[in-house]
């Protein structure tokens, strides 16, 4: 038997298969192992309804552009993205420790709190985890773990432990906990004020050191997925972004793939550091945009996709309770950071400090207590919506771990919490605006000051981009935009996920939309109140 193999598709087929088909003489050289492998067929049922809503449009695959493809294939690509940030943050550490104690003139404090935090928010709203792709903290620890800056190495400098499932099942709740801890530390030591620039340095050193420890003990980017204080915020707020991340181009190719190089690592790339399989990703939640899967795939079946804004909020079929609780807790935290300006809270904080012998604001009990109350009130309202609207003939009970377990409360809480993401994200963004509009020009004299020039008398040191009333107007506008987006997302989520399990479509629409409006209004009112308090 001899078959002419001149058509292009056949030329690109699996070499072993071709060897068997093409020529019986060549078949003698084929791998006999392949002949004796009898894998079970993969499950195809339910794929369409599971992924159709969240799969990006093929036309939005930017990696189809040969220049982008070449860039993404280059192993130095991520290194070159990390390098500038690495230089900036080591500068932050050294200048923070050794430079001037004037926060506005110290490059470390100025760049971190006037510009960086705000830029990260813009980045996540636009492009999801773009910051994670260039993060100098995880990046540095990963260089050490891989014992290389960009090369594909095999031996790692790590114990390679798996993160225990008992903790891992709480998913996004863990990084929210570390974010709460970091925020309390930041408030207690007035780091982000900014206060003493050395505090900023110690904070960065702390993040780098903890990242390094986790990278040396655990495999892949366990730190980034489960611990990093920013990951819950970037993951949730980033799901509004227009970058879907690296996804499969043809799911059938992935299902029939015998090697899964994107997960295990191939000649050209490491296995996904974020434990994400491009063929089953339905949001950009856990795509760190590190390009490793793209490099690894021997079939060129992975693309870098764009998506419509809020797709990763609205479209995913698999909703996770850990993400929902993370959103509720983040909402509680951002409201706390607004309420703490009020005289009533200051009095409460002083009273608690007096009784608990805490030297100054913020009292940890008051801090955690108020966040817990705000979170539970939000959850309680949603529970009420569930109690009011749920159909009695639908069974909600479902076994599983923390993230997967089902109940009537969760059937409403989880999707509604996803719908709140835009308003929560807008609130965090609005909170960063005053520092940016008031003080971001100080970065220029701060840079000059490192070289002995400029000082507090520089006009840029005292310049501001917007006046206070205009800042509040901008904040309220941002909240309004977030609220509108949240209303749209909630409407879509309600239509698809809540109306089928509710007795009255009208009731569930009114209550969920009402919740979003109340949240938006609360945030906006609090910004106005903060301005009034100042």
């Amino acid at each position, binding site marked *: 038997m001899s078959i*002419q*193999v*001149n058509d*292009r598709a056949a*030329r*690109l087929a699996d*070499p*072993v298969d*071709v*060897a068997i088909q093409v*020529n019986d*003489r*060549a078949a*003698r*050289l*084929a*791998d*006999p*192992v392949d*002949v*004796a*492998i*009898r*894998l*079970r067929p*993969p*499950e195809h*049922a*339910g794929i369409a309804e*599971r992924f159709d809503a969240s799969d990006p449009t093929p036309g939005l695959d930017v990696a189809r552009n*040969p220049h982008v*493809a070449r860039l993404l294939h280059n192993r130095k690509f991520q290194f070159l993205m990390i390098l500038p940030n690495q230089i900036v943050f080591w500068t932050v550490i050294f200048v923070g420790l050794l430079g001037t104690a004037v926060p506005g003139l110290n490059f470390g404090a100025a760049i971190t709190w006037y510009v960086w935090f705000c830029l990260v928010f813009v980045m996540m709203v636009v492009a999801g985890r773009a910051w994670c792709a260039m993060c100098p903290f995880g990046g540095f620890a990963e260089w050490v773990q891989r014992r290389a800056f960009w090369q594909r190495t095999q031996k790692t400098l790590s114990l390679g432990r798996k993160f225990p*499932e*008992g903790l*891992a*099942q709480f998913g996004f709740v863990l990084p929210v906990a570390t974010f709460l801890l970091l925020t309390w530390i930041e408030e207690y030591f007035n780091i982000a004020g900014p206060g003493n620039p050395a505090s900023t340095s110690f904070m960065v050193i702390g993040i780098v050191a903890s990242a390094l420890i986790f990278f040396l003990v655990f*495999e892949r980017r366990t730190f980034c997925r489960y611990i990093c204080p920013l990951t819950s915020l970037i993951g949730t707020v980033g799901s509004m972004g227009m970058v879907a991340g690296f996804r499969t181009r043809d799911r059938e190719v*992935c*299902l029939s793939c*015998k090697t*899964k*190089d994107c*997960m*295990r690592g*191939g*000649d050209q790339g490491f*296995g996904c550091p974020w*434990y*994400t*399989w491009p*063929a*089953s990703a339905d949001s950009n939640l856990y795509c760190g945009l590190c390009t490793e899967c793209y490099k690894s795939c*021997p079939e060129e079946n992975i693309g870098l996709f764009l998506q419509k804004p809020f797709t990763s909020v609205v479209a995913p*079929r*698999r909703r996770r309770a*850990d993400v929902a609780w993370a959103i509720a807790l983040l909402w509680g935290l951002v409201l706390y950071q607004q309420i703490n300006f009020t005289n009533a809270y200051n009095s409460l904080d002083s009273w608690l400090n007096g009784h608990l012998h805490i030297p100054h604001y913020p009292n940890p009990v008051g801090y955690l207590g108020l966040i817990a109350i705000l979170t539970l009130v939000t959850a309680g309202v949603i529970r009420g919506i569930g109690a009011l609207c749920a159909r009695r003939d639908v069974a909600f009970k479902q*076994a599983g*771990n*923390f993230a*997967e377990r089902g109940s009537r409360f969760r059937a409403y809480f989880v999707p509604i919490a996803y719908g709140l993401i835009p308003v929560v994200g807008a609130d965090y963004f609005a909170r960063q605006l005053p520092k940016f509009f008031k003080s971001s020009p100080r970065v220029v004299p701060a840079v000059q000051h490192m070289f002995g020039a400029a000082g507090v008398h520089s006009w840029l040191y005292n310049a501001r981009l917007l006046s206070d009333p205009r800042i509040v107007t901008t904040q309220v506008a941002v909240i309004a935009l977030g609220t509108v987006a949240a209303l749209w997302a909630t409407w879509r989520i309600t239509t698809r996920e809540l109306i089928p399990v509710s007795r009255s479509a009208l009731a569930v629409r009114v209550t969920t939309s009402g919740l979003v409006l109340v949240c938006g209004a609360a945030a906006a009112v609090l910004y106005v109140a903060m301005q009034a308090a100042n």
Partner: protein
Amino acid sequence: MTLTDTNRLPAGTDRPYVQIMTDRCAGCQECVIRCPTGALSMDTKHWVALADDDLCVGCRQCVRTCPFSAIVVEGPLLVGLRFEPEPVSPEHLLGDIGEIRSGLAGWPEALAEAERCLQCPDPTCIRGCPAHNDIPGFIGAVRDRDLESAHEILRRTSVLPDICSRVCNQSAQCEGACSWSLAGGTPVSIGRLERFITDNLAVPPPAPAPSASELSVGIIGSGPAGAGAAWDLLEAGASVTVYEKEATPGGLCVWGIPDFTLPEVVATRPWRQLSDAGLDLRCSTTIRPEDLDGLLVTHDAVIVAHGAGMPLRLPVPGADLDGVVDATMFLQGAKAAFESNGDPAGFCTTLGLAGDAGEQGHPAPEILVLGAGNTAMDVARTARRLGLRATCVDWLDERFALARPDELAEARHEGVEVRFSRTLTALHGSAGRVVRAELALTTQKRADQHPKVFSQKTEELQIDLVVMAMGYRSDPAFADALPGTPLRREASGVPDRRWTASGILANRASAFAHHSPVGRLALGREVSLRAAALPVSERLWAVGDALTGPATVVEAMAQGRRAAAAVLDSRPTRPGRSDRAWSSGQRRVLVCYESSGGKTARAAEAVADGFSARGDQVRVLPIAKVGTPELAAADLVVIGTWVEGFVVAGVRPAKAMRSWLDGLPRLAGKPIGMFCTFAVSPKDSLRSMRKAVEAKGALVVAQAAFGPGELGAEPGVFGPAAFGEELARQATIQAVSQVLVE
């Protein structure tokens, strides 16, 4: 009880307990498609794996194959006890060379053992077997009581099942890689089942095809590698001549392995069958390196399979004393002595040992065997059968012993003293004959570490004879004739992901396999198996120990078969042969490329179009998919790459291409066409590529560089398609043509 599964039974019960870590489970189904029992399925709502504990047998195949380590299995292995035949003790050790190991007693035992096999969908045992026998396939046939089918399945990959089932170290190969073994349990008795098949139905003889091609192949050596090659070539209708320097065929299987392990009647079975099938067997014919050119005139192809018969000697003070011999001399002499007309006592006397060995009142002479591998065990156990006392010493730690575990136990059972972590430092003599050995203690922490002498404290042994049995090496006289040998059996780079996916590399084997890294060892063997397909020089192949240095019977046989396939595939032609139909078949062209943005890939397609237009059979593959088998199956290889660098600074072939060229095997005269694509200038890219492939013995027949002008496919421009046509147009691909377009 874990936090994850509060509604399920805790571990520690009498059933395995599967925990899916849903946070990390990506729903890739790697576990689902490989679960032997179907205990894993998909939860299509959440798109994560779902486990049914009632179906799980605890083999942990899922744990090993999960790319994200998202499965934990606790609890026992649900598998029956392995059938272990009673150890056979020699009736009278002295002079008894009867086979020491028995097979499975009968069908009930065989069926019970066959039932222990899980019939894994992605069987790791197959990868652990150097020949890649379809183990679940033949065990399935045993279950069906169909020995003919079992033989048929075995025949696809092995011609020596009766020999391999007796001499293979299964614990480091198929049985070490069995799912049960990788899970920490006792593997299926694969070797005994294979032997059961051959014990109960004779290995079918070769069935030669009518000779159509007049292909003539000469094989040097009649060891297992020669047998493997000869069998397949004969069945394909080739005329095969085997040259053997000894008077009887079989090589090391006959003279190197004693009858109590491998009876001679079994060891010579293949050669009886091959001779009956028309093989031209020329014994007592020594081939020296200088004879190879003559053989290449007589034959279309020559396969060197002369083994590694040069014994290693330890250069210690006193090694030149009388009474210091090597294993070859000892084993060959003992074999002759145990034959029906032999004289064991006379052989002992020849060795300088007292003829009254073992008589009352006289302690038997003591021999010191250097080494504790399989050869050393053979020597020591043979010595016991000659009435001698034997002590083996090896500098390895016992945990990393090279001998088969069962062989070591049998040797000790027969009274051989085996001392590990010791090395010989000196031999002392009296009147020119060795009488005393000085040993130093050693320590070894890891298998891949050389032992170190950690104490100057020494031991002394009073001895009458020293046999150096540390192993063998290839004949250095053939070093020039066989470039690139001996080949290192070590895989480099990222392991083949099909192997990773199977789970064989996930963890070391169990205590049963002495915790050998069975996966890594198997990957190393795969390197030599694939290399056997490529000739070491034009029309000359090397296989078995001649290719890799000392290895195992099954490896040698598999390499012999692979070389035979390559000979049949590449249609070599001796000078003056006028069989045009044989040599002028459709040319197979492999175009392989390294592309980043797609430009070089498109150029490779255009080159392929040029060949296609001329009727050649073309395959286009990225270099990541091109390995030894693909290169071996091509008559002409075209290599294309993009060039890296900044404008004209640091311009050179892409790094991936450079690494790939560095890792190429010997290409022995394989015609190569090369091209590169560039933006401004290719500079010396083609020259450096040419240097790299010529260092591997390849013949560069054409090269071209394509800039933006040539890649534009303007009519009249010499572009990739024209390059392909130009290459294809040549009457003979060996004609060197330099086409350099810049």
